[in-house]
């Protein structure tokens, strides 16, 4: 590739001597290495770590790379990875959401109760709790209106409608209810942090405990609410696409990714805008397509350990996570809302001076976080088939925050992607699954997970220091 001349009609642009739009592949690689040296590592450490872990575990255990285990691993990690994807939004503005785990548990508990009591939340909760529950939802609507975040108010309002109307159990309605309850909890967090001005650490720590109490209240000590008798709720994390569906997913996923990347690349190239080198783009698109094809092929082979039944197809959690990844990436990269999230995280005062409503942005990320956490709850509850009083407990939260940070999202705000959460979540799922296969006790799993997180936070802090000293 050579330099592309920019729009010939504009003399000013050709005067702009040093500005380059298209780099050669070698230059791009050199630029990338320079960025890495300057401390902008992104998800590179996590990717390298993931590869190392996979090699290690497949050497130590024959089962680890078996198709059944891989599919199982995906479903195990999906719920918490989704929660991490929501937390990325909060981390991007430089805040923390410690309540995401128990908020997801509470949303899951409401879902399960609606299902178990056939839509009669009043009967399930008892009248006092039911009234308080709806008053809190109403409070969330009011707070969202005060913040002028209309989608938050609308979702919390829908939760009231579903709860009060007592419509009979329907898995889709229950999932919607969980999402809406999650959004309502986020409205409360967001208002306290952004409007009242309380530190997010304290607010979400307090709400962490509060939602945990709410779960206990809904489910009762030692109780469980089973949801596996609903075919839809059961299949979310335990079902698989048919072989045809799997390949359709591959076609849509890889094809869509390729069309988007290539379309954008050549359109930018034609208009003389800054682009990556064409070979690099082709390599990325080809790589994703090849990986997707191999994964689809393997996952459509029968992986049942039991010869009398057949298990094959890509697990539903894969398209669910991919859809959320696509949506999150689009919002952060292509909308002004996403741009403003990065700005608030990068320099809050600059964002304010640019006329961005910083309060609204800071509040809204907590609504995103809790709503997405509720979606995560649907997946992990489906995986185990029930919601118990421990749902969304401490480990869920630490796993989710850890996943985001391990993937390369900065705790200091302004840097990170939704994709980071997927990589980080995969790393932690591999650690948990691999150590489990090696029959390591819970103590070892906890210690190793903690050390991995510590390592990731250290990489974050060190790379920030590098970035602060380099370049200026």
């Amino acid at each position, binding site marked *: 590739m050579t330099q592309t001349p920019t729009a010939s009609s504009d003399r000013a642009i050709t005067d702009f001597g040093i500005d380059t739009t298209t780099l050669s592949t070698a230059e791009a690689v050199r630029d990338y290495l320079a960025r890495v040296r300057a401390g902008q590592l992104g998800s590179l450490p996590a990717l390298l770590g993931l590869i190392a872990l996979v090699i290690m575990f497949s050497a130590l255990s024959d089962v680890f790379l078996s198709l059944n285990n891989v599919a199982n691993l995906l479903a195990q990690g999906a719920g918490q990875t989704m929660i991490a994807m929501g937390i990325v939004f909060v981390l991007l503005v430089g805040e923390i959401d410690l309540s995401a785990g128990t908020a997801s548990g509470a949303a899951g508990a409401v879902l399960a109760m609606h299902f178990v009591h056939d839509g009669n939340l009043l009967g399930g909760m008892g009248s006092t709790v039911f009234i308080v529950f709806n008053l809190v939802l109403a409070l969330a609507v009011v707070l969202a209106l005060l913040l002028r975040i209309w989608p938050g108010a609308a979702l919390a309002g829908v939760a009231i409608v579903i709860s009060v109307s007592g419509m009979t159990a329907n898995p889709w309605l229950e999932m919607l209810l969980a999402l809406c309850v999650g959004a309502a909890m986020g409205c409360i967090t967001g208002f306290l942090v952004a409007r009242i001005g309380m530190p997010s650490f304290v607010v979400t720590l307090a709400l962490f405990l509060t939602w945990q109490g709410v779960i206990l209240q809904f489910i009762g000590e030692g109780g469980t609410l089973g949801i596996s008798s609903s075919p839809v709720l059961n299949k979310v994390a335990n079902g698989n696409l048919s072989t045809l569906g799997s390949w359709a997913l591959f076609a849509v996923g890889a094809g869509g990714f390729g069309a988007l990347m290539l379309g954008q690349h050549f359109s930018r190239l034609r208009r003389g805008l800054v682009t990556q080198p064409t070979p690099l783009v082709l390599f990325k698109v080809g790589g994703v397509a090849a990986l997707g094809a191999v994964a689809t092929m393997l996952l459509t082979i029968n992986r049942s350990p039991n010869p009398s039944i057949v298990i094959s197809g890509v697990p539903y959690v894969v398209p669910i996570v991919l859809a959320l990844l696509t949506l999150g990436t689009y919002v952060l990269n292509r909308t002004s809302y996403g741009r403003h999230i990065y700005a608030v995280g990068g320099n809050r005062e*600059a964002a304010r001076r640019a006329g961005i409503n910083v309060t609204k942005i800071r509040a809204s990320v907590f609504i995103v976080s809790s709503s997405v956490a509720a979606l995560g709850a649907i997946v992990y509850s489906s995986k185990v088939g029930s919601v118990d009083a421990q749902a969304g407990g401490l480990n869920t939260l630490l796993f989710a925050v850890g996943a985001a940070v391990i993937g390369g999202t900065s705790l200091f705000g302004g840097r990170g992607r939704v994709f980071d959460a997927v990589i980080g979540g995969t790393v932690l799922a591999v650690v948990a699954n691999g150590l489990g296969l090696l029959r390591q006790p819970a103590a070892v799993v906890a210690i190793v997970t903690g050390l991995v997180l510590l390592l990731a936070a250290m990489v974050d802090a060190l790379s920030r220091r590098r970035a602060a000293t380099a370049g200026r």
Partner: protein
Amino acid sequence: MTEPILELHGLNKSFGPVHVLHDVDFAVRAGEVTALVGDNGAGKSTLVKCIAGIYTSDSGDVRFQGEEVHIRGPKDAAALGIEVVYQDLALADNLDIVQNMFLGRERGSGWLLDEASMERAARETLASLSVRTVKSVRTPVASLSGGQRQTVAIAKSVLWDSKVVLLDEPTAALGVAQTRQVLDLVRRLAEQGLGVVLISHNMADVFEVSDRISVLYLGRVAAEVQTKEVTHGQVVELITAGRSGELGLARPDSAVL
């Protein structure tokens, strides 16, 4: 003598018990460079932030193009065509040059930003300022030098169809060559018919580019003079003592109280 495009009357601003601006009168004329000078802490940056809507003033009125206006926030100032290059730059390090220049005023719909149009406009503006040191307009601001950041901040303010540009110590952190560029740029903005306000501590710069000088002394306007009619020495005296011969505050010693 042209009518002022922006005119402040009797502006007061306190931060709690600290009364920073006292009955400040200040005018900006289209096509002219007005230098705003004063010692450290005189209130220059505060005055600029009041004009930009970052701070709300306690009292006083603002007229823009002859009409009374109320600036309640940064968006109001921007809507009038008032742009500020802040002393502390106000760029988001994690965003690239294009993203910073369009921050808060992105092109395209809220649901799909028009990156192509923004990138092209940013490049044209930088080119019109003869910026040749930036490798790519997609470079994150974190990796730019102080002078490059200053250029981006100035380019950001002229990108808009602005009528008044206020520059708070734009050359303080720059080398000789870059200061030269910025001063040329300041002059060019005035020639294009904009009202320009330049805050600077460098008297040589002030005398080279300004048409008028306003001196702030402990939050009060000590003098507003034509640059041609005063000497360096007089301005320095106004800055440090609040008066110089016939010019300045009547009794500077009592003014402090």
